[in-house]
């Protein structure tokens, strides 16, 4: 029977931070291109968040290898239909985008801003990719439950969006830079992506049927239902609806979304490897 790859805490963190990096970047690029002047804080926070996060992602991936000094061997080939191969490439390419976008977001020159928006438009796709490919990587392995979860990539993408937006929200709250309508738009986008995530999660569980057992009724069920569904999705949604004007409540909701995003990766990875 298939063997677990022993992708444990380092990979849980990688999946989690990679989702945030991708989500924060595409949110920033969308706000930058389609938002107004007052959304610049959101765009800048998103760009500046994605850069260190993707750097940490790269380090985590290298550290988890059996022979870390051979990490460049990933660059010996490019297999477009192999999530592990193309994923390694995209982490690098996306890293370049976050670097350039971050650098340009520090400039106030209009020509730099125009260039930044154009680069962001292309970078959006790499952000989407980084947030979702980890799910496709799992669903194309031989492990029971992972291999049956057709919607894993789609779910990880929605979770990348909700956690990326939550991370931007927290940064703005903590730096006091949340003036203007950017905050309300962020909360709106976060609520939306959480609802998409909930729907995808429901569809994934329904489609899995008995294969979902390690998640919904095994040793990890408490964490799944309590940590992810309750604490990480339903409670922040309720908090957002209750107190759209109270900043602290919004920030608390964002922190809960982040916890939920981590729990999602944790239960998905660990429940079939334990």
């Amino acid at each position, binding site marked *: 029977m298939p*063997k677990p790859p022993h992708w444990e805490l380092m990979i849980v963190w990688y999946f989690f931070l990679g989702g945030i990096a991708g989500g924060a970047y595409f949110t920033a690029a969308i706000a930058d291109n389609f938002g107004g002047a007052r959304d610049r804080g959101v765009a800048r926070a998103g760009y500046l968040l994605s850069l260190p996060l993707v750097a940490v992602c790269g380090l985590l991936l290298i550290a988890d290898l059996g022979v870390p000094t051979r990490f460049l061997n990933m660059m010996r080939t490019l*297999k477009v239909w192999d999530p*592990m191969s193309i994923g*390694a490439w995209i982490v690098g390419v996306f890293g370049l985008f976050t670097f350039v976008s971050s650098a340009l977001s520090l400039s106030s020159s209009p020509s730099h801003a125009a260039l930044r928006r154009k680069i962001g438009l292309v970078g959006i796709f790499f952000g989407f990719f980084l947030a979702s490919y980890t799910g496709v990587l799992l669903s194309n392995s031989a492990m029971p439950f992972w291999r049956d979860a057709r*919607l894993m990539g789609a779910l990880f993408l929605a979770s990348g969006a909700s956690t990326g937006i939550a991370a931007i929200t927290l940064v703005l709250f903590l730096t006091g830079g949340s003036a203007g309508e950017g905050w309300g738009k962020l909360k709106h986008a976060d609520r939306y992506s959480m609802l998409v995530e909930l729907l995808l999660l429901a569809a994934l569980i329904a489609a899995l049927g008995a294969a979902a057992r390690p998640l919904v009724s095994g040793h990890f069920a408490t964490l799944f239902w309590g940590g992810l569904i309750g604490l990480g999705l339903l409670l922040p949604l309720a908090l957002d609806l209750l107190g759209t004007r109270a900043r602290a409540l919004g920030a608390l909701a964002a922190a809960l979304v982040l916890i939920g995003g981590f729990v999602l990766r944790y239960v998905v990875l660990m429940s079939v490897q334990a």
Partner: protein
Amino acid sequence: MVRTLAMFTDTSLCIGCRACQVACKQWNELGLEVPEWTGGYQNHAHFTDKTYRLVRFIEEPGGKPNGDLAWLLMSDVCKHCAEAGCLDACPTGAIYRTEYGTVNINQDVCNGCRYCVSSCPFGVVSFNESTGTAKKCTFCNDRIHNGLGPACAKACPTESIQFGFRDELVGKAAKRVEKLKAMGFKDAQLYGADAKGFLGGLNAFFLLLAKPSTYDLPDNPRLPQRNVMVDSLLSIGSALVVGLGVLLSFRERGKGGPHA
């Protein structure tokens, strides 16, 4: 590619002596392991990074034609699949197909990402902590390139493990199944012999006396990567739905377009 080589393991001839398992260990210099309690003679329960040939000992009540308990013995090994999940998963190109059709891991290239471990439908590929690389049966790559058969096949005293050209072995195997069926082994069947069957056929294929699941083998193993297109399209759909929602949240309404 030269003519495909294969190993045919006829489990009806296996006597459980484990000469193959020992020969494999010795030739490939596979180190000592702590034995595990499996409730029977089998050791280990699964393939490990130091066990590439594994004799399975299975007790099957009522498995004999006369209704007695059957002791099913099977020398299991990497299947060297024609469509190999491990090979498709490998991001470094360390896992490659030889000119003989076998699948091998280049130990100097593997960087230990372990995607191949979770991509083998049979749980063959194993991670070695000390080398930091993935390990599995090499089909005695060094021996077959020097005119010798694999160590396991060479050591087998009953010709339960046969080595040769795939097309010839498949013909032999088909005749053997017919013979066994005539003797009353009604569940005798080939596993992986059919090149049009699952995974494009296995270059190490088997004759089983019971259904595959009895031997801890999947009845219908599938290539893990077969869904990558569907899963990617679903992710793209999700990206469109999520991206559009975020865009609508940030869009400037009634101000004459962006950057007003």
